[in-house]
């Protein structure tokens, strides 16, 4: 049987989709809406508090998952959706989508390992 990366990208799609379903809406509410609309206590997302969060090993792991899982979920779904929009260059599309996810993963890992 030909080697395939399908099981890897599919399991990341499924894990990422589940993680995004549970976590992404409340994350968007907190960082994207409640902050800007002044609904959070002033110190909620302060530098000291956020730094302490990502310096804690558990917080670091959670912060990494918040980027890693949805990024690969979105990349895989975007690749499939490009086909639905009539884009037939799957090789190029896959390269772009997975490269974007890989860049986010690496940048997040770099940021989290350097704090």
């Amino acid at each position, binding site marked *: 049987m030909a080697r395939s990366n399908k099981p890897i990208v599919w399991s990341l799609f499924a894990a990422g989709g589940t993680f*995004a*379903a549970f*976590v992404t809406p409340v994350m968007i509410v907190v960082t994207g809406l409640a902050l800007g609309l002044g609904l959070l*206590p002033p110190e909620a997302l302060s530098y000291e508090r956020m730094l302490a969060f990502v310096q804690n090993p558990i917080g670091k792991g959670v912060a990494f998952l918040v980027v890693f899982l949805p990024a690969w979920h979105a990349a895989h779904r975007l690749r499939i*959706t490009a086909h639905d929009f009539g884009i037939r260059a799957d090789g190029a599309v896959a390269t772009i989508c997975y490269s974007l996810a890989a860049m986010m993963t690496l940048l*997040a890992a770099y*940021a989290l390992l350097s704090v």
Partner: protein
Amino acid sequence: MSRNPYIRPVSDTTWWTAQPRYIRYMAREVSCILIGAYTGVVTFGLFHLSQGAAAWNGFLETLQSPLSIAFHLLALAFALYHTTTWFNVTPKAMPLQLGETQVPGGVIIGAHYAGWAVVSIVVLFLVGA
């Protein structure tokens, strides 16, 4: 005998506008663009956090601009659509059997919504909202 087979004219790019359920399918698929973009925002934020207090505070300021809030409203709408469509297919994606009986689909879906509520409340509680 030479007859050309009939080929139904279907556009590769706009086929999904033909029926409401195709549009709903595409809305579900397109949710990945907003979720991906928001993940990019989070990545950007983590990078700023690693660059010190001034960089982080600049990032927080950007998040409070009207343009940012408009983007996050759109992202929230699609993220919620992703969540509901994702949960609603869970009985098909991972059917659950206990002994001889199949767990009803409504129970599997309901458990996901309950878990979602718990996760959301815990996050809001930890943030301090």
